[in-house]
Structure formats: structure tokens, C-alpha cells
């Protein structure tokens, strides 16, 4: 996936993942946006909060509901130099999850710190 970014402009993009996987398609289709942003050489950030933390839970096995397991894509992000993954501590805790439950390396941060990081972005897209 190679795209021309003729402008040379590099913006800070943040993809805010707030929704659980499989119940709706947002978690899957936002990954396409993430990958294309990287192909455009943008500074890509992904935040996982609220039910979005479930997107990177280990062990997705959607065969029984007739759907495709798209979680390997999260593991592939590193290959596209997408390594800025942030998970909100409070969201994990409310759901009884810990960093060990997640299938990719992330930076766990507090809600306040995540809010501050969000405020430094140039483009924020929630899915």
C-alpha cells in the first residue's frame, strides 16, 4: 500500500475506538482508515476507550457467529509503523480487564492524560 502524499504535510491523526467489535462494523472498517493514513505518511495514533478496549481483547473467535476474525489486523499494524496505541486505564478497569488481556503492546494511560493527548491532535476520527 503506497500512496503519494504530494503535499508533504504530516498531520497528527487520532482514531478514537469507542465501540465493541462484531456487534457493529465500526471497529473493522476504521482499520482501513488507519492503514491508509499510514500509507499517506501521517502521524497515526489509535486510542482505545469505553467499549473500544474490547476490540483488542485476546482470543476473538467469531466462527460461531459466522463472522470473520479481523483481530490479526491489529497485530499487523506494527508492520505499517503504526505503533502509537493508547488504552484508557479507567475503561479497562470498569470492564475488569488488564493489560495482559490485550493482544498487542499498548500504552495504558489515565483518562486525564488521554484527554490531553487528544487535545494535541490535528484530526480526530471516532469510530
Amino acid at each position, binding site marked *: 500500500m503506497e500512496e503519494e502524499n504530494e503535499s508533504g504535510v504530516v498531520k497528527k491523526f487520532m482514531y478514537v475506538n469507542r*465501540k*465493541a*467489535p*462484531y*456487534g*457493529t462494523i465500526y471497529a473493522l472498517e476504521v482499520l482501513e482508515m488507519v492503514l491508509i493514513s499510514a500509507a499517506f505518511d501521517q502521524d497515526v495514533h489509535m486510542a482505545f476507550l*469505553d*467499549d473500544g478496549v*474490547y476490540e483488542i*481483547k*485476546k*482470543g*476473538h*473467535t*467469531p*466462527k*460461531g*457467529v459466522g*463472522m470473520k476474525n479481523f*483481530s490479526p489486523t491489529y497485530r499487523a499494524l506494527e508492520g505499517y509503523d503504526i505503533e502509537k496505541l493508547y488504552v484508557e486505564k479507567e475503561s479497562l478497569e*470498569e*470492564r*475488569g480487564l488488564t493489560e495482559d488481556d490485550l493482544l498487542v503492546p499498548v500504552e495504558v494511560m489515565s483518562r486525564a492524560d488521554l484527554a490531553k493527548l487528544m487535545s494535541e491532535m490535528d484530526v480526530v476520527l471516532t469510530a
Partner: protein
Amino acid sequence: MSTLHTVNKSPFERSNLDSCLGHVVAGDSIILIEDAVYAALSGTSVTARMADAAKQFRICVLGPDLQARGMDTGAVIDGITVVDYGGFVDLAAESRVVNAWL
């Protein structure tokens, strides 16, 4: 003369489950499907409420939806029963009416 209530939304994001719990009557059953399966798990901020509800009503959770989301059936709250789609069909057949809390 009972109702099967279906709930399909996450308890952390929507009020559907709360609304359902406010309208269940004695003898009714509830099945948690799709994103509502997160309500069936121990260790969360809604666990206490669900464990309490499970003492009053039959509550089931759809196993294939738990598995899809990487959730261990061992983590399901005591008193909540894991069923497959066949079990969902049985619950619907055993009840007099099915009420989807959309």
C-alpha cells in the same frame, strides 16, 4: 405465560439492559446476545447488578457471541447460563412471547 426478553447492547454504552431489567416480571427470562454479552461477565462495574438480577430471573447468555469477543465462559457470573443458538430457540419456544429490547 412468561416472556423471553432479548438484549443486544453493551451495558456500558446503552440503557437497553437497564430498561429491560425495569420491566421484567416474575417467571420471565432474559437472554444477552451480541454486545450485551459483556453484561454477563464477572469483575466489571455492572457485575453486582447482574448477579442480583440472576437471583430473581432466569438469565442466559449466548455462547457464540461470548466466544466471538474472546470472552471465557468460565468468567460468566454464577447463576447466568451459557446457551448456543439452539438454546436460544428453545428459550423462545418455551416462552409465550419474545420481547426484543431494541
